[in-house]
């Protein structure tokens, strides 16, 4: 069944940049220039491109963390861009995000139990004991222990913090998870653990991922479909397996040629 769970149509987002002498002038930078994507239910859609290509802006605009200039984001038949703030907050239960930097995205003054449980509190799901139970089950699922609930983020390594970030996003049992470079700040050894965890959770919880990355080796392993972005525009999209074999656009060919270690490494 190929059902699209999230569809974005003709997204446009422009930033104003100071320029000229003393920054008195200003130029318009099109971070998203008529971008349309669709995410199939239960699949992973990778968004690749170099820094400045608009990948992260796309992630934030999909979840309405940043206002769009124009375009619509359809989820369950509703346009997220037009929802009232309260309705949008209600909808966010189903749309969660895993952030790039595990060191900056967790509140240093909150205990891990509070960080993971905050979503349940906001959406008023269950009583305190049930919330506690859910948080614990989620933490155990991502490989942490009961004792970790009382700890603060600084007591954890980068990989463990990313696990906390994943638990925080998934405790609400969302349908769509946007992962903004979830493994780029981690060592290769930890990176593999997190990728495998994300894959397992996707199958268990029937999640659909939007996976933002600039590492094409990672994308090859985790994604089903991909979108290649360049200067705010989508230059190519399709199934990962096809694009890696036959990249049509010159920029995609460049990206693929730039993957390090194509020559030797055999496991």
């Amino acid at each position, binding site marked *: 069944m190929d059902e699209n769970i999230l569809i974005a149509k003709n997204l446009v987002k422009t930033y104003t940049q100071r320029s000229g002498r003393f920054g008195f002038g200003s130029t318009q930078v099109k971070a998203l220039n008529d971008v349309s994507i669709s995410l199939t239910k239960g699949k992973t859609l990778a968004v690749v491109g*170099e*820094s400045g290509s608009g990948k992260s802006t796309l992630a934030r605009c999909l979840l309405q963390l940043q206002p769009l200039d124009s375009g619509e984001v359809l989820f369950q038949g509703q346009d997220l861009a037009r929802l009232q703030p309260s309705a949008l907050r209600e909808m966010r239960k189903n749309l969660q995000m895993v952030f790039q930097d595990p060191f900056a995205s967790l509140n240093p003054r909150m205990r891990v139990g509070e960080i993971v449980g905050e979503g349940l509190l906001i959406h008023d799901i269950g009583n305190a004991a049930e919330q506690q139970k859910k948080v614990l089950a989620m933490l155990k699922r991502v490989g942490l222990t009961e004792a970790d609930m009382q700890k603060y983020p600084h007591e954890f390594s*980068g990989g463990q913090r990313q696990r906390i970030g994943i638990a925080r996003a998934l405790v609400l049992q969302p349908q769509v998870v946007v992962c903004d470079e979830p493994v780029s700040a981690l*060592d*290769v*050894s*930890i*990176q*593999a*653990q997190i*990728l*495998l965890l994300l894959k397992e959770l996707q199958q268990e919880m029937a999640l659909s991922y939007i996976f933002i990355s*600039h*590492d*094409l*080796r*990672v994308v*090859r*392993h985790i994604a089903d479909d991909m979108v290649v972005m360049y200067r705010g525009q989508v230059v190519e999209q399709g199934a*990962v*397996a096809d694009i*890696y074999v036959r990249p049509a656009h010159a920029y995609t060919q*460049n*990206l*693929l*040629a*730039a*993957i*390090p*270690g*194509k*020559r*030797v*490494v*055999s*496991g």
Partner: protein
Amino acid sequence: MAVDLQTDHSAKSRPLLQIEHLSISSKKMPDRLLVNDVSFSIEIGKTTCVVGESGSGKSLTALAIMGLLSRQLQLNGGKVLFNDIDKGVVDLTRLDDESLRKLRGDKIAMIFQEPMTSLNPVLTVGYQIGESLATHLGLKGERLKNKIADLLDMVGIPPERANSYPDELSGGQRQRVMIAMSIACEPSLLIADEPTTALDVTVQAQILKLLSDLKSRMNMGMLFITHDFGVVADIADNVVVMFRGQIVEAGTREQVLGNPQHPYTKALLACVPDAEGTKQLRPIDYAWLADEGKEVAATGVVHG
């Protein structure tokens, strides 16, 4: 203090840098070795890659070569023998500050990991590149300017950007400026500490190509620190794998990547995703540590 150790060997046949039994610990806990009995060497005109997870001691080893260890740390022992073509072999760990300063930036240069934080934001990049030229080679005026322009040109930045400040350049350009600074005096040894980790793949490919061109053009020896096996496969001649302060495996690129012997190297290679997507991705496995523990008990050899 230049110690001429073995005069009977010609300078050219000796390795460029020889690290022997290097150990580093924090001053407060001298028993806990952060780098434990590390020995390897770098040949003239070859690249040695040091691979390992964070905390494995790869950056500390590099800093110890340069004599840049922070004050909280101490060298517990070992030698760092640098083969200076003009002056013979010197032990870098025994040099006084003044002679070390003369070597640094001239014969031995370093590229740091973070191009955003390792440049001085209030000085133009031209000035920062010229600093070592003025100090070590005594260049001045027009000749200095021309040399800076040449260097910028060599790393692929338009020479007129010499008057730009670091914040006016992109991440890739800043890293190129760092490279221009480090090769300014044509060092015989270049230490690169994860020079491409913060960069995009396309920019990374350019930088790696640039470094390998420069290496062959200037016959430079290179110590390249990374945790990306893809990069290792592209540029290394020799590979050293570190784990918790110790070397677990060392050899040529073909040996280490093609036929890894140590279980840690195998585990590390198994968690690198490949571009074809055919390889089964496996999480890192420390089961071998338990096995090694038994072996240690049996043979009576103590690992830190």
